């Protein structure tokens, strides 16, 4: 059977996975290595930071009998982590809505996801500002450098995700909504969103919980 | 290819054959260089002796594989050339052959692995009790050597005894360099923030020095970052150490005396040390016995009063990028030509 279009439609692919979805999966594979390298950098320097004795430090440490309080605010960040987790849940509803022809559910869930994402970003801005006030910057020590780079790039990904979802929401407001492909569109966006959440689920214990 | 073209080609080759033979002979004659002071296949140090075992092995195996694959390529190219009546045999592969030629490289690399691991283990032995311990420190673009127990500091010319292990701590104050004396030992990098080590025993004393060279690209004058290693008998080495530990010599002439005064009131002492004097700078090479070195500028110039003058006047002229600022008035420094001559005389006298 000859395919009638150059960019094959979903059902015509050899793997059975739609092209754009496969693209997203592969892209996320690449992203794993991206965050993996950033996390590796953090781990490499984690203990050196304490050894060099230049604070602020992430967690409480005793250096020469003096207790240095950790700068990380674990309760607050736990809250923001919870917010991000909830956004994954609302994203699931959005995908469900898109795939089962329930546009209102989809739009509301998208909106909720966007709002939760923005709240998470708000937490992060607050955290960054506080840290800078407490004397932790990119150049203070390697904890500052690795922390801001890793969480900063994660935050950027959340930000890009929010823009992605906003444009999707805007497009769904058009007369014919997201068209016949709505399910696929939202599902692919969902893949990205869940991935960004999962990265945070890795970062949070590594950075915040592990002393 | 048709026969007439073949014949023509053959005739042409025959005409050029004598010329080609002559050219080959000329090339070989010119290429038979016997003096190769940085050859890696000469074994003058224990490190080279250790690595020579896998080294020789890889060469032998490489030669065999090379000859075999080249021969097969050439033979197949000739034997199976397209010609009238020849048809290609159609087959897709052969499992037994695949197994055989998977095994061949496995055998080859196993043969290389065994001496390789042996050599790695041998290199990891602890330092000998009587070893001479030296800090070798890389700077852009020169080497500093500090004899740890003897408290002697020198630059670009390393003196060691024959038959005794020398254990180096390799360090760098700026960028990555690499410490390499091909005839004595393989290279190890000098990485800022790390202390690497290498140790080897020079097998014999000899009058001419072994040549070393920085082997990791380190900026503008990387090519000019060379050093020399002098291997002495124990007695000669003891004598050298004694003189090297002494303070800088006193000026022997009026000119040298004048040079010393100029040296001591100029920018020189901000960077250089002369033991027993006010000069205690740490940025540049220790000059306490600079007059006794055979070369200056990390091995790029023979050490004479004239080359010293040239160097002092504007070192970047002979060594691009040199971190030592020009001293000649004409190049923005503070010293006149005469003053430079005097300083050079003083330095030459620091035997």
């Amino acid at each position, binding site marked *: 059977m000859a395919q009638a279009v*150059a960019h*094959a439609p979903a059902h015509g*692919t050899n*793997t059975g*996975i739609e092209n754009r979805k*496969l*693209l997203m999966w*592969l892209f996320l*594979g*690449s992203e794993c290595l991206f965050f*993996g*390298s950033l996390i590796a950098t953090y781990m490499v*320097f984690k203990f050196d930071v304490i050894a060099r004795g*230049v604070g602020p430090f992430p967690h409480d440490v005793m250096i020469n009998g003096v207790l240095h309080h950790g700068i990380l605010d674990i309760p607050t960040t736990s809250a923001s982590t919870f917010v991000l987790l909830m956004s994954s849940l609302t994203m699931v509803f959005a995908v469900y809505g898109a795939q089962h022809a329930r546009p209102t559910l989809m739009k509301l869930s998208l909106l909720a996801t966007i709002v939760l994402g923005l709240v998470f970003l708000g937490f992060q801005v607050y955290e960054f500002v506080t840290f800078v006030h407490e004397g932790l910057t*990119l150049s203070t020590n*390697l904890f500052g*450098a690795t922390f801001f*780079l890793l969480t900063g790039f994660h935050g950027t990904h959340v930000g890009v995700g929010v823009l992605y979802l906003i444009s999707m929401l805007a*497009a769904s407001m058009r007369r014919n909504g997201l068209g016949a492909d709505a399910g696929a569109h939202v599902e692919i966006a969902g893949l990205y969103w869940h991935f960004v959440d999962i990265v945070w689920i890795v970062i949070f214990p590594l950075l915040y919980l592990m002393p | 290819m048709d026969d007439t073209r073949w014949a023509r080609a053959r005739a042409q080759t025959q005409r050029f054959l004598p010329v080609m033979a002559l050219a080959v002979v000329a090339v070989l004659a010119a290429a038979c260089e016997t003096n*190769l002071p940085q050859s890696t*296949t000469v074994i003058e140090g224990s490190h080279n002796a250790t*690595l020579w075992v896998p*080294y020789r092995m890889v060469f032998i195996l*490489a030669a065999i594989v090379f000859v075999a*694959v080249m021969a*097969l*390529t050439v033979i197949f*190219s000739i034997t*199976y*050339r*397209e*010609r009238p009546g020849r048809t290609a045999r159609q087959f*897709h*592969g052969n499992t037994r*052959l*695949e197994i055989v030629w998977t095994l061949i490289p496995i055998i080859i*690399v196993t043969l*290389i692995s065994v001496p*390789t691991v042996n*050599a790695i283990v041998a290199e*990891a032995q602890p330092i000998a009790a009587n070893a001479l311990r030296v800090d070798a420190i890389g700077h*852009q673009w020169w080497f500093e050597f500090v004899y740890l127990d003897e408290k002697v500091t020198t630059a670009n010319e390393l003196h060691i005894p024959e038959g005794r292990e020398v254990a180096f701590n390799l360090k760098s104050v*700026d*960028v*990555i360099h690499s410490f390499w004396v091909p005839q004595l030992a*393989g290279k*190890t990098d000098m990485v800022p*923030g*790390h202390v*690497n*080590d290498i140790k080897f025993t020079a097998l014999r004393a000899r009058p001419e020095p072994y040549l070393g060279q920085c082997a990791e*690209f380190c*900026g*503008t*004058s*990387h*090519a*000019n970052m060379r050093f020399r290693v002098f291997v002495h008998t124990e007695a000669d080495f003891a004598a050298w150490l004694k003189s090297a530990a002494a303070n800088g010599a006193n000026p022997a002439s009026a000119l040298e005396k004048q040079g010393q005064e100029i040296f001591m009131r100029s920018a020189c002492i901000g960077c250089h040390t002369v033991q027993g004097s006010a000069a205690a700078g740490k940025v540049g090479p220790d000059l306490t016995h600079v007059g006794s070195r055979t070369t200056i500028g990390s091995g790029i110039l023979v050490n004479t009063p004239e080359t010293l003058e040239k160097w002092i006047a504007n070192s970047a002229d002979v060594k*691009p*990028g040199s971190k030592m600022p020009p001293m000649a008035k004409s190049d923005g420094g503070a010293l006149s030509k005469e003053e430079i001559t005097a300083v050079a005389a003083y330095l030459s006298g620091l035997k």
Partner: protein
Amino acid sequence: MATAAGTLAHHAESGVWSWLTTVDHKRIGVLYGITAFSFFIWGGVQALLIRTQLAVPNGEVIPATLYNQLFTMHALTMIFLAVMPLGASFSNFLTPLMIGARDVAFPRLNALSFWVFAGGAVILTSSFFFEAPGAGWFNYVPLAGRTYSPGQGIDFYVIGLTVLGLSSLMAALNFAVTIMNMRAPGMTMMRLPVFIWMVLIISFLLILALPPLTVALIELLFDRNYGTNFFNPAEGGDPILWQHLFWIFGHPEVYVLILPAMGIVSEVLPVFSRKPLFGYSAIVFAGMAIAFLGWAVWSHHMFTTGMGAVPRTIFAANTMLIAVPTGVKIFNWLGTMYGGSLRFNTAMSFSVAFIALFTIGGISGVMHASPPVDTQQQDTYFIIAHLHYVLVGGAVTGIFSGIFYWFPKMTGRLLDERLGMTQFWLWFIGVNMTFFPMHYLGLVGMPRRIYTYDNDLGWGFWNMFETVGAFVIAASVLLFVINFFRTMQQEPTASDNPWDAPTLEWATSSPPPEHDFDVIPVVRARDPLWYNRDHNIQAEQPTGEHIHLPPPSYYPLLLAVGVSVLAVGPISHIAFTALGAVIAVYGIWGWALEPTE
């Protein structure tokens, strides 16, 4: 428009605008090819300057700083702007044709990859007008840090490579999806042409290898410009971290460079041996093994950095293991020649030369896989010999073979064989003259990256010899350029399948129509056209269906301009970033809303 195939939404036009807006994989392939070949010549000019300086001891043609910039830019130009995109040129032109598709999965993304590549190339090359990077292509810190490289050169390196990496990533994603998803009916994975297998493997290598490089570049950018100390030992940073991140990318990258040539040779050898490829599955699995093992060997570039005995042993063992699949490939190519009827035209000659030259590079690779041996070879001309045998003797020789082989398909014209064979012999002689003595020079202690050397080291003769060889190579490339222009002036008279080759791209016209195939072919065997020939199977008849092709679009170009302008912000003025972002957002917007029907 009506064709034999039925109706066709037709866009083929000529003129500059049609090239700027094309989303046709064949045209994008041509764009890659011409751009990359121009950079190949530019990189060659840099090489000739380098060789001229080294021709005699204490040469005084080129001063130290410029020399250091030249060898840095030579490597960057050749690797990222010539050999990689030449590979991309082949994969663009051929992938849809060889798998029986009408285009890649994402035609506009494909155009975007090319234009972003062009942007990165312009950024990197324009550094010559300001300050070219001069810390070597692997750009070791701290030398590449702000303290020891205060000028802008390294910033050009960082930005240029980041942008080029983005381009490669997009292309890799696109080709992986295309090959996994868009094969013609019957084109199973184990019937894929070897070249396509190699493209797939390269795509995966790039998808996974680029991020560590990107992270390293970002960290360096921050170190240089925003006060972090990732690589600054004085503040607790570690220069070795850069080396790990760079070579985790760098070693897979060398396979990205060589695998296209291995694929090309695996297509050319059977055609001109008049018999099927020997050991198809062995070659495919060896390719996968190489790509897989390639992840566990990066530290063989760091044997002299003071690694412990255990990691040295492990990385040495892994590196030696790679010789096994590599050897398997070489033997299978020889097996393909065995018993054949070899027609030594230019394409075939280059492919056979590839076997010989690549083998030499492979052998030297195994030699310095032994860490104790490597302490004598690392950073000497022996390594330069190794990498040029694999990259010039291997990759570029294979690429020339591919050019001669597919030229009729790409242009409808056959390159002149007399000029071609002359070029081949000059190439073969020149490459060996230039690079073989480098083994020797390395063994007698000549370090790499030195702009000068003393007379009494005994290196003078062979350096002069190599310089002569370099000009022989230049003559060979010049002949090719002449051949190209002469051939392009002739009428396109090549038949659909002038070589009687077995793969699908030869089933359509030369050059192919914009829609590639009037009818998507059905694949019944690994060498489909030979199978059809031997079983008297006629090509499928057109069904008269409507063929839809994506319309041209200028948004990829616009978006690429936006990305490039955005990227130069950190080395010029932040306003550029803002401007670039505006252009990029507009580009994405237009892209998303543009009808593709």
